[in-house]
């Protein structure tokens, strides 16, 4: 009985030697998706914040209108 008690105490004493976890915060912090909008009045018109489909369409339309000069000229 005494031996078992000593064993338990030894195990309990060893448990104090364990290290605390040192894992740093992961960089994978959840980021709000861009299609959720900013809630500020600076958003471009023509799409609905929170609607991913309309946001994607807005970007495609904006790319064509703003960067495809062949579409504008011809």
């Amino acid at each position: 009985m005494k031996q078992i008690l000593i064993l338990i105490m030894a195990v309990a004493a060893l448990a104090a030697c364990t290290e605390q976890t040192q894992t740093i915060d992961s960089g994978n912090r959840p980021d709000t998706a861009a299609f959720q909008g900013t809630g500020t009045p600076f958003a471009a018109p023509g799409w609905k914040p929170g609607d991913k489909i309309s946001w994607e369409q807005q970007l495609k339309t904006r790319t064509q209108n703003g960067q495809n000069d062949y579409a504008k000229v011809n």
Partner: protein
Amino acid sequence: MARMKFVCDAERCIECNSCVTACKNEHEVPWGVNRRRVVTLNDGIPGERSISVACMHCSDAPCMAVCPVNCFYRSDEGVVLHDKDVCIGCGYCSYACPFGAPQFPASGHFGVRGKMDKCTFCAGGPEANGSQAEFDKYGRNRLAEGKLPACAEMCSTKALLGGDGDVIADIFRNRVLKRGKGAEVWGWGTAYGSKQAGQPGGAKS
């Protein structure tokens, strides 16, 4: 939606640096940090070419691979972003990046390197979209405003294209077909020859 990408048309870039200026102005980037730069090859020699270079938001980004604190993450649109609260400013990413995209502010004491700063594709960072904290650390979040990167939208000659990879690839392809040249300058044509440009090996492509 495909991945967000930049393409710079070396046939059109006139080294005006308006993309650099637009970026610095939009995000209030501090002195010593240029998220975007214009690089000129064979400067002063007839036929010189300029391209605008920033973070290319690599599909297999070496900066992400080497970061010891895992501060990088990739958005659903393929934009490589980082968390400045986690960054320790070690500089590994700047050594790994083939484009020199990661920059470090030099405002501290000699030898002190601050948190890494780089192009965000105007997509901000992990702070709340449009918040002051996001602006202070990463600049404007234009994507969340339904806009595209300021550098590409401000480009006077439309040399710099930025947006959905499929869309800008179509724009660039159409442009090259219409003007009849350009694909031989960079990319596939340079490596394997371009039939369109009359170079050997073009038949294989």
